[in-house]
């Protein structure tokens, strides 16, 4: 038997040695870090797309001086479009892959750990369900947009520098290129679009997918897609309207009137709205509130569902 003084001494030495607690921020950091270890596609997929595009772009450089001369003969707007096009295309390609990785990640995030039973290991550590779910939600909402932004900027920078060198080599000035693709401004538009649209504006979608992945016993993809389709179908059959579909579409793709058809395919088309208007728009905040509800449900489900 332990005497009380022994117990005291032991508990003191125990608290003296290691009982320094761990801050919530550090727990969150390691929870996000472990998602990056497990899901390397978060950065490998954008890097691969950037690399493949660069290879194609480098091969096409042979024709750059000719294309540049042709572009210079055009009017100001078509010229702007022609010169900026590859930069827009790479940004769009990276956005598409970012979206696909995010959707795939969300559907797997809280489903995979139950399927392979590793949830028993995660839950044997002092990390709350709230921390875990928030760490997982931060991947599509914040981490993936930022990673994609970094890859886009790096790719576009390499493209600009190499193009300038080729143009200089063929005796042309690179100044036209840099005025049509202003690097700093392009990057800023990219950042706002990725974080604002692909992160915050799409957050309710990611929240929904995370909730389904915490809930589904199998086939999370089907469970994620069937209910919205069912709601749309019932609404169409019952009332012959499609408000639900329009609402989802407006939220994810922007309202139809905000797209400027005259703009063509330029980097400016990705600038969503004036930033102030975007931040203050009610639909953004309603979306974020809906996200919070989905994430709260995901936390509850992860706690209750456990292994089943």
């Amino acid at each position, binding site marked *: 038997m332990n005497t009380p003084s022994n117990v005291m001494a032991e508990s003191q030495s125990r608290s003296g040695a290691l009982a320094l*607690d761990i801050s919530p921020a550090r727990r969150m950091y*390691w929870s996000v870090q472990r998602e990056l*270890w497990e899901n390397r596609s978060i950065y490998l997929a954008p890097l691969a797309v950037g690399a493949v595009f660069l290879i194609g772009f480098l091969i096409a450089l042979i024709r750059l001086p000719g294309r540049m001369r042709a572009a210079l003969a055009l009017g100001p707007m078509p010229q702007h479009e022609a010169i900026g096009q590859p930069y827009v295309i790479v940004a769009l390609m990276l956005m598409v892959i970012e979206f696909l990785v995010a959707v795939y990640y969300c559907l797997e995030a809280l489903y995979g750990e139950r399927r*392979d039973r*590793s949830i028993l290991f995660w839950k044997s*550590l*002092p990390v709350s369900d709230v921390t875990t779910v928030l760490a997982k939600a931060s991947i599509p909402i914040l981490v993936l947009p930022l990673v994609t932004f970094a890859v886009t900027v790096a790719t576009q920078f390499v493209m600009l520098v190499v193009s300038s060198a080729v143009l200089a080599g063929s005796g042309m000035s690179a100044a036209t290129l840099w005025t049509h693709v202003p690097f700093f401004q392009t990057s800023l538009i990219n950042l706002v679009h990725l974080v604002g649209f692909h992160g915050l504006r799409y957050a309710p979608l990611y929240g929904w997918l995370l909730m389904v992945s915490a809930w589904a016993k199998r086939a999370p993809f089907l469970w994620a897609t069937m209910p919205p389709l069912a709601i749309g179908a019932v609404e169409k059959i019952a009332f012959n309207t499609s408000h639900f579909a329009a609402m989802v579409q407006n939220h994810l793709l922007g309202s139809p009137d905000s797209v400027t058809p005259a703009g063509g395919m330029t980097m400016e088309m990705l600038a969503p709205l004036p930033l102030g208007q975007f931040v203050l728009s009610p639909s953004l905040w309603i979306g974020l509130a809906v996200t919070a509800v989905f994430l709260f449900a995901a936390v509850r489900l992860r706690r209750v569902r456990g*292994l089943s």
Partner: protein
Amino acid sequence: MACLEARGLRKTFGATVALDGLDLQVEEGRILGLIGPNGAGKTTALNAIVGLTSYEGRLNVLGRNPWTEREQLMRDVCFIADVAVLPRWMRVSQALDYVAGVHPRFDRAKAEAFLAKTTIGPTSKVRELSKGMVTQLHLAVVMAIDARLLVLDEPTLGLDILSRKAFYDSLLNDYFERTRTVVVATHQVEEVEHVLTDLMFIDRGRVVFSRSMEDVESQYREVLVHPDTLAAARALNPIHERQGVGRSILLFEGLERQQLAALGDVRTPSVADLFVAIMSSRRGQAQGATR
């Protein structure tokens, strides 16, 4: 102080009753073996103790409610579910980094020292390790955590006999001390019986037998009875009888050694034999009652 106390613990899954009013109390510094047939409710009970499942009834683990305070509780409790739960994509170094990052009582140097004695390299992935090595890794992590309660659910399932023995040797020699408490559920009784201080049999969600190992040793005797003295032995009300080679083996409760010595060789029953005896006598009674 009771480290772990359950009163009337109940859990149902639909129509299946997994825990049917389970009572148990474990004092600090004990090593309790929870033995039961498949589906007896062992895993459900342990999951409730570590906050993985909800329950009805009262459950107190280190002064906390595991269902509402899992996060805080897991600073003082370690849990090994079974060998397959370490994420397969993880590298050994990542496992150590992560646990060090989230667990305030994890001593990384200790875990590395333990791993240095094995053949597990820091860059190996869990999926590349054998079952025995994964268990060693998990044990290395758990043993480096200064916890007060260790909960093990079939920790050696699927391991060969050498790994099983090594597991319990490490547990006893390197980990266990007086301020720690261990609860282990298994049906591989032979490996654990020399480790335990307390023994509990559960069946259909209820505790059917609960004794300290000292009590088991002083209360239960097994006698190898020659056919000539069998009638006399049966008159003493054995709780169980089975056939050995040329002898009958009778199990008695509460009789003195001297009293039994006249009937044949007396020995302490193994936990496995005791388990079979208690379970079959219970099932016999249950059948008698329904008839």
